[in-house]
């Protein structure tokens, strides 16, 4: 059936671990034979990760939605004078973390808007506050876009900024803000945001300092398939240089409450396709995540047969996607992850942020 789907050549390449070209990537995106795409992606998935399927016990903190970028695909960011704007004080953040000290949380995931007024010291103190109440936790915080902004307001280089953040408690960097790297897309949807090259540069700088990071792609708005492949190619090239990316996370665009609300939501086939193509193409990324907050728990489980080896975390109080009309759950218990993963014939592994095994089930 792979041959019938016109993907025989790509199957041979994947079997012999030959790298796919941009043209191969495009052909995969153009195929509507989702089972064949899954078959190809599963070969790569099982070669790299076997049956292991990871999840993490984590907590999300979205410190503020005030943002000067106001990207068209975002329902979370608000102008400072908006009635819906909010910001948490360092004390609020500390309390959020304290509230859940009884739980075995391994990671605090903290991101926010590009705030026009918060001083650089706020970010340093926020990290220190989290570490002071929960010294062992890993803090994955501030997308490359936020890091570039912090370098700007601290009037330092990205490298110096990252070193200071790391000294204050930053452990790794989440993959957000990548959107689609193409200048055309950024000009049309998020012209004020850090450029694609700028994003990659921040990530590579972090990697050179030994700080790991993730990468994302926001699909399903106005991007072309060529632009998706270009995005993946840039990530793959950067990874060849530094090896610092852990996980690629395709993010489904949620149109509700955004300026692109006229667009429709991604379909199940689109969601699986973006996971499968990424798994085939990003041969140097250790992990591909099915982010259930975006695509729902049902799809995330199915995605384990289509290239994904990570189901993200237990997450509570996720705000960014839910502001854009996500109807997915707010939290999934670890026990539920374990049964979903087992039912899909895989091995559940609770991990820490850097993919060290906590418990195998």
């Amino acid at each position, binding site marked *: *059936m792979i041959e019938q789907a016109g993907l025989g050549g790509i199957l041979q390449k994947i079997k012999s671990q030959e790298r796919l070209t941009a043209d191969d990537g495009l052909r995969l995106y153009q195929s*509507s*034979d*989702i*089972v064949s795409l*899954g*078959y190809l992606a*599963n070969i790569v998935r099982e070669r790299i990760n076997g049956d292991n399927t990871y999840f993490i016990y984590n907590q999300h903190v979205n410190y503020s939605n005030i943002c000067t970028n106001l990207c068209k695909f975002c329902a979370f960011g608000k102008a400072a004078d908006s009635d819906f704007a909010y910001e948490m004080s360092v004390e609020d953040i500390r309390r959020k973390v304290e509230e859940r000290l009884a739980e075995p949380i391994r990671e605090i995931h903290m991101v926010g808007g590009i705030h026009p007024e918060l001083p650089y010291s706020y970010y340093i103190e926020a990290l220190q506050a989290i570490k002071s109440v929960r010294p062992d936790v890993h803090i994955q915080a501030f997308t490359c876009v936020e890091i570039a902004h912090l370098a700007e307001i601290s009037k330092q280089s990205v490298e110096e900024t990252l070193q200071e953040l790391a000294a204050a408690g930053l452990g790794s960097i989440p993959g957000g803000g990548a959107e689609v790297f193409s200048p055309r897309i950024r000009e049309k949807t998020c012209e004020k945001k850090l450029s694609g090259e700028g994003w990659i540069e921040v990530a590579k700088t972090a990697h050179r300092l030994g700080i790991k990071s993730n990468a994302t792609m926001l699909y399903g708005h106005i991007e072309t398939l060529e632009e998706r492949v270009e995005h993946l190619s840039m990530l793959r090239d950067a990874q060849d240089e530094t090896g610092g990316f852990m996980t690629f996370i395709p993010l489904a665009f949620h149109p509700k409450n955004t300026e692109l609300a006229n667009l*429709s939501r991604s*379909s*199940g*086939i*689109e*969601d*699986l396709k973006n996971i499968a193509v990424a798994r085939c193409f990003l041969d140097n990324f250790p992990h591909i995540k099915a982010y259930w907050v975006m*695509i*729902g728990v*049902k*799809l995330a*489980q*199915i995605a*384990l*047969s289509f290239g994904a080896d990570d189901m993200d975390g237990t997450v509570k109080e996720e705000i960014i996607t839910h502001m854009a009309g996500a109807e997915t759950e707010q939290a999934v218990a670890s026990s539920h992850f374990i*049964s*979903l993963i087992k*039912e*899909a*014939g895989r091995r559940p592994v609770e991990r820490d942020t850097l993919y060290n095994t906590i418990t195998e089930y």
Partner: protein
Amino acid sequence: MTSIIDDKVLAGERIDGAEALELLKSNDLLRLGFLASAVRKRLHPEPLVTYVIDRNINYTDVCISACKFCAFYKAPEDSDGSVLSFDELRQKIEETKDLGGTQILLQGGLHPDLPFSFYEEMVSFMKGLDIHIHGFSPPEIWHFSEIAGLPVPEVMARLKKAGLDSIPGGGAEILNEECRAQTSPRKCGASQWIEVMDEAHKQGLRTSATMMFGHVESLEDRIEHLQRIRDLQDRTGGFTAFIPWPFQPDNTVLAHLPKTSAFTYLKMLAVSRIFLDNVDNIQASWVTQGPKVAQLSLSFGANDFGSTMIEENVVAAAGVSFRLSESEIKTLVEGAGYLPRQRLMDYTLV
């Protein structure tokens, strides 16, 4: 891949119950997708996915059956229970026709007091409004037979004469007597369900068949269910479609049972497509699975999106509330690389 089964399926040969069980126990979802897609393509070489525009009308929620998996019914002594008036029926049917609907899926509880003549009059009244009546699942027919003291063939003949066009495949749950004794002891048994469908087919009434899985049954029980459907279909050819869906536990007596995952749903769907080689159509259950998984179902054996369900009450009572418009169904079907086509109950295209 275990190639004996695969070779059989790909060669268009029938697999037996033991082989279907082996497939159901496998976790190789993609293999099941390949095999189910091969069967689907053999039966439906044209790249179409069909759907029907209709409305579920539940003429009463009063029911003496008290099935443990049901969140919809009201016990006869419960004052909240009701029966729709003919005026309400008329209004619902006119709304349906205004929305381009072609049929009514008419089902209700097993009411203790309504006489059989009520059902004949209801069908006859509805037929006067010129719409296809897809009504009365086998447990209802069996119940009518008991309250009227008439044999099933006569009940069926009289309903047909009143205007009944076809029979929905509901109430099948799991066609295994032990499962039914555990979950729905007051409802017609597995053999009786088959007997009613056999009679319907003999009288020229087409029917669908369903399966509600993921509660107390074993995998073997599911295979028995499929086997009973395939055996009857070999004799009569009267089934138009098979519709498997997972039990929705919220608000039921069995609420403590875990929910069937999407992975298990797609496996069951694929095995149904592979095993039921003599049933033309397999329906996706978007009402229980939501639009994303329903779209994926088309790659796991389904060739039909079921109904637009202008109204649905039974699954909604179990806390599941997916809604899809005709245009959303079309978009999902096109996104999967198929052409959406409106159909009638017997799968002729509109």
